[in-house]
């Protein structure tokens, strides 16, 4: 294929991921979040716009599109404006390596089956924190800066257990490619073989996407809204898109690595993927609305003193077992 066609294909793919994530993850995710939180707290939630409040987020997005952009007088204009692009972009890049199902003839539905898929995922999700730090510093606001700094320490700490969980699975499958990892789960899912790595991945993913009980970054009772306190209108919406996009990407990766990806009986593969994805999204929301928030020292201590040793031990034991089985 000539290079300009490749380029066009990449641009079309980007638009497809962007609109897909914007609609499926951010819009529907926000609605789901509000509905589930209402259900957990014995409320009704959004109910008036559209049937059962289904169009509420569309109305909110239209409202945000019309709002004025406000840039604080002492903010750093370049960094303030570019931070908005970094966070959703890093979240969208995650979707390149996620296999959503199979097309006709068993060909996996994936943008690129990179042979470093899992590593690529870890690398792109690590870029989110750069955008958060830029937003926190560029706003020139103490709450935003505190949120950004908390985010940096939190995400650097939780990337390590997450990476160790990823390596464990990659070692079992003998590949970093997400498609090969799903193929390796033909007999049973890795959640059966690696329950510890699954739990570690879910905890680290919750911390990486800054959700309760790890939402120190935007703890509303302490920091207003953390790093995006000063953002208005569509810029605010783009941060929301980045957060929900990242959460859906984490859930999709957990499905791919531990829950057998698109595999399942009777139903079509894409449907299986979506069912598993939303089951995990429900777990994330359930945790968010039922648990209190950690303190920052508890949060960091938990990562360094509990998660990392457990993940390391799990990695060593898995490596040992893999060696014995191979002999």
């Amino acid at each position, binding site marked *: 294929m000539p290079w300009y066609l490749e380029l066009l294909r990449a641009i079309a793919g980007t638009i497809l991921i962007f609109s897909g994530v914007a609609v499926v993850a951010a819009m529907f995710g926000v609605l789901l979040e509000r509905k589930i939180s209402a259900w957990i707290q014995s409320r009704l939630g959004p109910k008036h716009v559209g049937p059962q409040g289904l169009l509420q987020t569309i109305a909110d997005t239209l409202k945000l599109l019309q709002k004025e952009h406000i840039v604080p007088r002492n903010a750093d204009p370049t*960094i303030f404006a570019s931070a908005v692009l970094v966070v959703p972009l890093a979240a969208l890049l995650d979707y390149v390596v996620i296999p959503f199902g199979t097309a006709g003839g068993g060909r996996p539905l994936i943008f690129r089956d990179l042979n470093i898929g899992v590593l690529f995922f870890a690398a792109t999700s690590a870029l989110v924190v750069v955008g958060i730090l830029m937003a926190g510093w560029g706003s020139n606001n103490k709450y935003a800066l505190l949120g950004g700094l908390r985010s940096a320490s939190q*995400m650097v700490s939780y990337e390590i257990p997450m990476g160790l969980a990823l390596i464990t699975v990659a070692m079992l499958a003998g590949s970093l490619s997400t498609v090969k990892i799903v193929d390796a789960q033909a007999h049973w899912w890795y959640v059966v073989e690696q329950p510890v790595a699954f739990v570690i991945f879910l905890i680290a993913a919750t911390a990486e996407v800054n959700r309760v009980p790890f939402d120190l970054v935007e703890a509303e009772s302490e920091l207003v809204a953390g790093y995006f306190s000063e953002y208005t209108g569509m810029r605010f919406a783009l941060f929301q898109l980045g957060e929900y996009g990242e959460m859906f990407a984490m859930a999709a990766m957990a499905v791919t690595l531990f829950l057998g990806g698109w595999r399942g009986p009777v139903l079509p593969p894409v449907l299986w993927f979506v069912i598993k994805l939303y089951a995990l999204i429900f777990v994330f929301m359930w945790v968010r609305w039922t648990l209190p928030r950690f303190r920052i020292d508890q949060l960091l201590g938990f990562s360094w003193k509990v998660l990392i040793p457990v993940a390391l031990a799990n990695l060593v034991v898995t490596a040992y077992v893999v060696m014995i089985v191979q002999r």
Partner: protein
Amino acid sequence: MTGEAIAFYVLAAITLASGVVVVRSPNIVHSAVALIPAFLGVTGVYILLGAEFVAGIQVLIYAGAITVLILFVIMLTEGGTGLRLRQVNEQETIGAMVAGVIAALLVVGITRTGWHAGMGALPAYTPGAIGQSFLGPNLLVFEGTSIVLLVSLIGAIIIARKEE
């Protein structure tokens, strides 16, 4: 011009332009943030060369972790942010001349050398090969590096906990 060449020149332009911002910007946070496109440009060159694993590590370690730590340290340092710093002293002209001469020498040297092209095939899948070479022929270097890392880790802890 092939697509590969265009991609290379675009990546080189991104890397060099952000490199200039890193060394010239009067704002230290701008310098640190400009490191990210520079690292990502180098990542693109790695991908063009077929070294995907190194590219992934480059993003994860340099763009994702090192830059974040640099930004983190700058933001925690009193007086580090919000100041206009001069990055050069009175020797700016001499330094620029030396840098220019070195760049010219490098360009002449690289373009005049007859490079051996097409020596052997690229390995199809690099992470396995890298792991094999770490635990095989380069074991001593690998273990030596890990000792250096361990020593610096312990040193950092000792310096951080001095007051107790």
